[in-house]
């Protein structure tokens, strides 16, 4: 009669432990990769909604006398003139009270920064014109990341 030494049980136990460890490792690895990818997607999306939104707006409306920078309230703002069905509108983009905001109106004179629509969370937007027709945007997003973009106005601006 063969004696049962228990080696089969130990081997099964070791294999089960290896199985469990491999399972945990793959889950942990997958979760980590997913977190990194999601973070990067969010960062990319923040950039697109922030600076890229502003630069795309300029490129889409870069006509003579239609783009200029100035102050709206106490903050730097980008002013874009639009003509829709013969009517003139003004599109103002600025950061106010922790948000990147946009105001579309006939004349921005009668409005304040609080009247705009929220686009995204942001800390600040500084706009400079280091040489004629070149706008330099320094944008700080809600996470505190500072990004800069230069946009050359083909139309020459205002």
């Amino acid at each position, binding site marked *: 009669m063969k004696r049962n030494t228990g080696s089969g049980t130990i081997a099964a136990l070791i294999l089960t432990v290896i*199985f469990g460890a491999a399972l945990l490792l793959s889950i942990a*690895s997958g979760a980590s*990769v997913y977190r990194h990818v999601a973070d*990067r*997607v969010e960062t990319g999306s923040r950039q697109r909604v922030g600076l*890229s939104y502003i630069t795309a707006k300029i490129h889409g409306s870069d006509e003579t006398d239609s783009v200029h920078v100035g102050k709206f309230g106490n903050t730097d703002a980008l002013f874009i003139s639009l003509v829709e069905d013969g009517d003139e509108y003004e599109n103002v983009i600025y950061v106010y009270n922790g948000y990147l905001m946009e105001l579309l109106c006939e004349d921005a004179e009668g409005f304040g920064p609080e009247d705009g629509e929220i686009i995204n969370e942001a800390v600040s937007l500084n706009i400079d014109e280091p*040489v*004629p027709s*070149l706008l330099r945007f320094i944008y700080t997003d809600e996470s505190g990341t500072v990004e800069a973009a230069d946009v050359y106005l*083909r139309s020459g601006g205002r």
Partner: protein
Amino acid sequence: MDNRLRPTRSGLFAIELLISVGIFIFCAAICLGLFSKAESISSESADLNRAVNEARSVSECYKACGGDIDSVSMLLDSKADSGCIKLFYDDLWNRVSEKSISSFNLILSQKENGAVVTVCSSNKELLSWFVSALEVAG
């Protein structure tokens, strides 16, 4: 009398378990490889995104200066050397002054009727495009 060794029940169970674990580890290895590739693609995509932003800004400066490389270098707070401007960035895309501590570099090289903007990481080229020198408006 039959003297052949017969497998025990626990032995059969161990073999079955071994095969299952082997299959699982094989699948896990494939998954880990895919995770690693996903991470690498995501990282490359983020770097390419930043590279495009930086190259676009430099190109806009070049156009604004009408192709004058010295004016561009002043605007970018750098030095022009034989018709070439080099900018260095760390791994978080912050500007750094020395090549030795940089992970990425951007090179603007003056050519006839324009310039070529190239962005490279430490081991490969991320992008390269030609920028024509426009007349400054006004």
